[in-house]
């Protein structure tokens, strides 16, 4: 048949890297995306550091110090920002102004485009988490020691929230509505998931535990709280949400600004 059949996998990998590089370039050049993914979580952790820097372990924070609790949850916020929020908004915008339609007209395979975005988001998330952990250590929060568990939670979380971001972008019609819709979904979710204050209600815990943000918080809390082992239960809930998001994205994602 065609040349495509015999295309070396190495060339496809090179193409993926090529795509990631240009996604990175677009991202770092855009002051708005850099602000929301970096400045916001950094400001919060600095403010929390100033507020709680001196406080020790307490039962309110489940036996952790306040900052030991907030470093992983704010790190989760930064991952949500760069994967879920940013991706949904950027894709809705790129669709609206016709950029996606053009991408689809090139030989770049669709999966390479999305894998490129995913890899880009994971990289940005890693920088984000490192930044938050670094600032936390300035306020005396020890760096996590269980790196494989942290890396697993980070990559799985980033991938799941990317899938959910693409799913939301698939359901939004116009890009002006995107930031509002994204925040409308995220904001209450953060509050019931213990991001800004620990949850001490078993009913709320159960509800939030079945939604995506709480499990991600839990999966990140472990490595930061120096617990050994992987929180498989949380990771599987997260993965299920990621799979659901991917399913919606695959079925509903549109490239063309005008519906057919």
């Amino acid at each position, binding site marked *: 048949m065609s*040349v*495509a059949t015999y295309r070396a996998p190495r060339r496809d990998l090179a193409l993926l890297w*090529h795509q990631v590089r240009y996604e990175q*370039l677009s991202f770092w*050049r855009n002051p708005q995306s850099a602000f929301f993914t970096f400045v916001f979580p950094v400001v919060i952790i600095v403010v929390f550091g100033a507020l709680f820097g001196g406080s020790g372990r307490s039962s309110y924070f489940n036996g952790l110090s306040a900052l030991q609790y907030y470093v992983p949850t704010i790190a989760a916020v930064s991952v949500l920002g760069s994967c879920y929020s940013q991706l949904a908004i950027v894709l809705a915008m790129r669709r609206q102004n*016709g950029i996606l339609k*053009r991408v689809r*007209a090139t*030989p*770049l395979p669709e999966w390479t485009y999305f894998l490129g975005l995913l890899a880009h988001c994971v990289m940005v998330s890693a920088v984000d988490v490192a930044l938050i952990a670094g600032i936390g250590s300035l306020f005396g929060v020890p760096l996590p020691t269980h790196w494989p568990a942290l890396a697993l939670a980070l990559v799985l979380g980033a991938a799941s929230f990317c899938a959910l971001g693409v799913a939301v972008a698939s359901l939004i019609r116009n890009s002006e509505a995107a930031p509002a819709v994204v925040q409308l979904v995220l904001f209450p979710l953060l509050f019931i998931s213990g991001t800004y204050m620990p949850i001490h209600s078993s009913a709320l815990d159960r509800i939030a535990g079945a939604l995506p943000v709480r499990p991600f918080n839990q999966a990140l809390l472990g490595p930061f709280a120096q617990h050994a082992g992987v929180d498989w239960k949380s990771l599987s809930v997260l993965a299920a949400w990621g799979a659901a998001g991917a399913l919606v994205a695959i079925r509903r994602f549109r490239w063309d600004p005008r519906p057919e």
Partner: protein
Amino acid sequence: MRTYMTGTAEGAARVAVPARSAAPAAVVVAGLRKSYGAVQAVRGVSFTVRHGEIFALLGPNGAGKTTTLEIMEGFRTADAGRVEVLGYDPGDRARGRALRERIGLVLQDIAVEPYLTVRETIARNAGYYPAPRDVDEVIGLVGLAGQERKKVRNLSGGQKRRLDLALGLIGRPELLFLDEPTTGFDPNARHEAWDVICGLRGAGVTIMLTTHYMDEAQALADRVAVMAGGQIVAEGTPSDIGGRDTARSRIRFALPDGYTTADLPVDGVLGEGQVSVETAEPTQALHQLTGWALQRGMVLGRLTVDRPSLEDIYLRLTGDGTRIEGSIR
């Protein structure tokens, strides 16, 4: 930036371009139909684009040009009919990559990432193709030399359009779709773009063009088809479409003071202060008219002889009955 030679006066001899593949035609469209709800946008359109030619689709807004083009480009699926582009079905995404490596697109609306530079944008797309053109060569070709390091968001509308054209060319396409490529260009930029397009034809590229500008179709196209109301109402070369080659000539001049059209040796119609004479025998009619004027020691002011322009034919073909909406730019 005259990289390629101009040279498309009407009727100028065109270099025959050898077909690149054994396929009989670059594009075959047969019995194409497409409706949006109750609106029939395309109603049984058929045409063929031969390898190496520039084929222009003309028509007012809403005539179905863009829908036809978007089905050929694989963005939309037809309700009925057959479309073959370089031997592929453009709606078949599974085999689409091989097709998209061989075609280039310049769409109607400008859409490029705002934060990359001109060079980065072109280099990124170059990476998508197996044998792309040289990035700097393309930058020169579309007239963006000196702007390479400029961010896309800081480009003017015309410059963005050139960048769009660059993205259409970077993959070394065999077939290029140009949807109103020079809309928004100033006259100089348009002529430069025409030079580029003629140069591409010289290099063997087949071009499928839509345009609102009759002079553009006249200057570029080997063949044109006029669409109105979702159908092709005429097809031919720019010089013979709609019976243009056999149409009667028109002689126009100012009626001398003190005379009426009844005094003239030929039949004429008075309108807008000018007499207009339509004739199949312009030499004879002119001889009679000028003889008549010379005998009386008069001058026929503002004397012109012409044939209906492509625009006249176009306006007649797409006239009120079939015009759906919008204006003709």
